[in-house]
């Protein structure tokens, strides 16, 4: 792999041992990919903090937070002092909400260690956004901007909706990028890899947030990690907004490994179908009609059945927007949750603050629900005690939660979820 003089100097230790270790990892990683070179990045999104007992014990045994960063974020067995980050770095979601430990069954020690870890990350320059949706709270890359992001639902949003460029990075490559401002120039950083390979022709209108999740779930399973373009003859009647595309990409990245998609007339690299395809022929053209929509719905409800009694409703995967909180608050206003049901709604800390100020938190709490941040049930493996069946308006969460926790999942619209929260029973169905 070719290295510039600047990169060689970092590898030779000019900027100290941590930058040297970071560049060493990028060289090993770039060569593993068979990348030609590295590319400059000024935008990293990653998990940095530590939340597990294993990391806590590691810190104790090996020399504190620098030891944890050296091993887990730089793949360096030698403990090196970690300097301040060179690059604007946003912290992603974690394994719990440290503000509500009792609700998630967390012990005091774990929370204390996390807080120490958060202070360390913040002191190095990490923005403590603690969300899977950094593009909601101050990190909105522009078209063509080279990024190094983790979190599949954020990666697909970054590439597809914003037109910025990132691969699905991991904790260690992001750690190296923070200290060097470099990432391998490979995959979705190159224009020729961003063109669509598969055309999805819509035979039904796709309008609601639920509709976009169903479409994404269908597409991910069909195309796996390739690049789909969604097209409707005559155009899409209602241009999808942030909650719709957020749900769509997260679903496609769950049933498959989609990191980049196009919607003709909507996303920035698809003004036309020809542009999305980069002038090439599609490998395959797939139709999405009522039968495919129903099949996606049934797969998402594969674990549902029986009494339809619900003990838990989770909203906010990916983290809810303020618009979605506003909608949930309207649906809940003046109602009460069924005594056997709990409702947890997840959003970034910054948006929770906005919901507090606007009065939505009060409406949701008066109904018996809670707003949480930093995590979700799949990440935290935390659900209210006694949960056997969950109602969800997220295809991604419906995909993961039964596998992770062995619970039954009912997938539907937000309104159906809130009705289930208030009645204790799932009464939804595909409209």
């Amino acid at each position, binding site marked *: 792999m070719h290295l510039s003089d600047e990169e060689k100097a970092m590898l030779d230790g000019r900027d100290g041992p941590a930058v040297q270790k970071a560049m060493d990892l990028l060289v090993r990683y770039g060569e593993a*990919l068979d990348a030609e070179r590295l590319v400059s990045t000024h935008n990293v999104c990653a998990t940095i903090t530590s939340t597990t007992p*294993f990391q806590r014990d*590691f810190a104790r045994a090996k020399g504190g937070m620098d030891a944890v960063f050296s091993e887990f974020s730089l793949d360096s067995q030698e403990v090196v002092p970690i300097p301040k980050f060179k690059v604007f770095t946003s912290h992603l979601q974690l394994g719990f909400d440290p503000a509500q430990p009792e609700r998630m069954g967390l012990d005091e020690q774990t929370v204390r260690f996390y807080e120490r870890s958060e202070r360390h990350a913040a002191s190095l320059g990490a923005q403590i956004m603690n969300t899977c949706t950094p593009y909601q709270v101050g990190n909105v890359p522009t078209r063509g901007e080279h990024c190094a992001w*983790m979190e599949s639902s954020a990666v697909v949003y970054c590439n597809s909706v914003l037109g910025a460029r990132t691969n*699905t990075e991991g*904790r260690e490559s992001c750690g190296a990028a923070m200290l060097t401002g470099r990432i391998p120039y490979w995959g979705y950083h190159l224009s020729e890899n961003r063109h669509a390979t598969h055309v999805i022709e819509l035979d039904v209108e796709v309008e609601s947030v639920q509709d976009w999740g169903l479409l994404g779930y269908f597409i991910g399973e069909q195309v796996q990690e390739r690049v789909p373009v969604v097209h409707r003859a005559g155009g899409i009647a209602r241009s999808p907004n942030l909650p719709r595309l957020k749900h769509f990409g997260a679903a496609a990245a769950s049933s498959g490994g989609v990191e980049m998609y196009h919607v003709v007339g909507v996303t920035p690299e698809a003004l036309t179908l020809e542009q999305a395809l980069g002038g090439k022929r599609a490998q395959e053209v797939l139709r999405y009609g009522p039968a495919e929509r129903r099949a996606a719905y049934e797969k998402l409800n594969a674990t549902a059945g029986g009494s339809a009694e619900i003990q838990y409703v989770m909203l906010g995967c990916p983290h809810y927007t303020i618009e979605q909180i506003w909608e949930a608050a309207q649906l809940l206003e003046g109602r009460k949750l069924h005594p056997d049901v709990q409702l947890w709604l997840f959003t970034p800390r910054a948006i929770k603050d906005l919901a507090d100020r606007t009065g939505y938190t009060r409406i949701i709490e008066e109904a018996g629900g809670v707003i949480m941040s930093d995590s979700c049930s799949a990440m935290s493996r935390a659900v209210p005690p006694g949960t056997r069946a969950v109602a969800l308006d997220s295809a991604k969460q419906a995909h*993961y939660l039964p596998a992770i926790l062995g619970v039954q999942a009912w997938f539907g619209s937000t309104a159906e979820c809130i009705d289930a929260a208030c009645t204790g029973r799932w009464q939804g169905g595909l409209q």
Partner: protein
Amino acid sequence: MSAASTAPRAAGPVAPDLALRGRKVVGGVVEGEALVTRDHISGWGGIDPRTGTVIEVRHELRGQSFAGKVLVFPGAKGSSGWSAMFHTARLMKAAPAAFLFNEMTTKIALGAVVTHAPAMTGFDRDPLDCIETGDWVRVDADRGIVEVTKKNNRHAGGQARARGERP
């Protein structure tokens, strides 16, 4: 394959039944028993790094451990936590001895790098077609050669022996 068959052998008295050539992803030489799957592997939510066991519901390796094995699979899928899970498996001494795979992605590339296990891809024939679970496999990632002794021809095998790996 003359270079491979005339080289001094440390694997034992049995000559390999077949050899594959491929591209080095992570260098090193190691040998061990193959664990083969046609299913993609998820890291986060797909494996238990404490034991190296596949936990994904409906995965054909569910309940089996890849610790110390030569893992032969199509590629990685799922969350960006892939590398962190295999990294943790290494620290818990439950990582695979080597990775042989077909589809290159950033998840598998970074995962193999931080696992410090020899890894190869880009083979001249599909390893999923010619390597079976239980075969004895010698991976020389530095020279780009994989030698396979079919399980029927194996002498009583021992532990995977690793040479030339990164510490």
